[in-house]
């Protein structure tokens, strides 16, 4: 079944995920359309990171299905490379390659994985580094960059693979409040360009401003969801209200 843009680009259906006997996801379903920005919020341990890690097959699932542009992520014969060309991921701890400079970090995947021409990749990498506002830092090693700068290199590194969907796993959780902003601005730019983004985040202000849809998860299920305006104003479930009460 080939995927067409009028259908969800990411489709999560009744997903169950366990680590041993601990069931982390207990039947989660949601759809993301192309160009949408979706925020997943919820208390720690509610399974939100696990959920987005399942979308690019870093974690396997025990039940249900996940499809990205029609690629069945749970299929035993999954073409992981095909999936990962479509899905970019940014992590809480940046996870840059510490032995490579910023620009090398950005260039590695296109040259090694896509086997593209080096000169062309380098030109694009410079443009990406400029896009995340890090001109002049091309030849710095990750250890010489601040957390916020590293995270922006990590975003550029993912974008270099030209993905259709970007996953952000609590990407500002390890940053201090001032640098959170510079990373969020970068993500906001991306969203404005029409990139499909799925974010796990605790940044409620950001979610309210940028998200098209917000999902609140607790103990492995989606408790409540909706567009930001209604979600923040009319959350009815007591768990959601309690969580929002603590955060806002």
């Amino acid at each position: 079944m080939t995927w067409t843009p009028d259908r969800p680009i990411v489709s999560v259906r009744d997903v169950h995920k366990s680590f041993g006997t601990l069931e982390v996801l207990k039947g989660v379903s949601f759809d993301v359309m192309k160009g949408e920005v979706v925020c997943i919020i919820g208390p720690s341990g509610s399974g939100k990171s696990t959920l987005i890690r399942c979308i690019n097959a870093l974690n396997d699932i025990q039940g249900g299905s996940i499809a990205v542009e029609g690629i069945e992520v749970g299929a035993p014969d999954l073409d992981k490379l095909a999936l990962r060309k479509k899905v970019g991921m940014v992590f809480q701890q940046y996870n840059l390659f510490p032995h490579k400079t910023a620009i090398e970090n950005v260039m590695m995947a296109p040259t090694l994985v896509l086997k593209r021409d080096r000169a062309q990749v380098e030109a694009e990498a410079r443009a990406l580094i400029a896009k995340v506002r890090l001109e002049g830092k091309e030849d710095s090693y990750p250890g010489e960059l601040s957390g916020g700068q590293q995270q922006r290199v990590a975003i550029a590194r993912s974008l270099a693979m030209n993905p259709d969907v970007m996953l952000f796993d609590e990407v500002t959780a390890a940053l201090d409040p001032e640098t959170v902003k510079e990373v969020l601005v970068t993500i906001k730019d991306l969203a404005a360009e029409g990139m499909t983004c799925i974010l796990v985040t605790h940044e409620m202000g950001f979610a309210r401003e940028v998200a098209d849809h917000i999902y609140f998860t607790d103990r492995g299920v989606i408790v409540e969801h909706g567009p930001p305006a209604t979600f923040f104003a009319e959350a009815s479930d007591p768990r959601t209200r309690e969580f929002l009460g603590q955060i806002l």
Partner: protein
Amino acid sequence: MDWLADAARDLAEAAPRWNFIWLYDEKSAGKILSGIWMTIQLSVACLILSVVIGLAGAWAQGSPSRIVRAIVQGYIQFFRNTPPFVQLLFFYFALGQFTPTWSPDGWLEIPIISNVGWAIISLSFFAGAFNVEIFRAGIEAVPESTREASESLGFTRSQTFRYIVMPLAIRVSLPALNNNLVNLVKTTTQAFGIAVPELLYQSVTIWNDHPSAQYPTMLLLFVVYIVLVGILVAGMNRWERQMRIPGYGA
């Protein structure tokens, strides 16, 4: 250098146990030099081969196949837990019997693996077993999250290993590798047991012919190994410095 040869000759006459024979006798000097050269060749060959074995073994240890992991584990246990000298004798005398021969002149039958070849093979496997463990420790020091990052960029397992894990693991492994390679250079003296004409072998032939040269030749052995190992350690330290990543703690 004639004055040195004369001084050595005078000393040998005055003190019969301190015959620095290779300072004035050309034949002995030649033996020492060819022994040093053989030791260097043996060491370099074993260093390279044992590191290759270590890398390959460490890679195979991360294999999804249990059988492959069990084979690597068996290899490590065997070579790490048995004496290298016994390994050397076993390789040369037991396995050596089964190696095919060839005849360059149509007259003499020569095994395709010489005693030098067996020494290189057996010592490399010996040191390689330790190198596997050393690299494995280095690999385990690379955070799982770094691997996940490369995986989510579409790297294959071997690309992740080659471009991400190994460059970081080697940096962590260098100090321990350094130690093992120092031991390896010293262990090449055991090739003496299968008549490989390395430095110890040549030294023994000298003092068998000239017992008066025994102590001086032993002293020379110490000096040569101090210098050889010193060069190796200096080289390794230089490498370690070059590999240092700005702003990275490892």
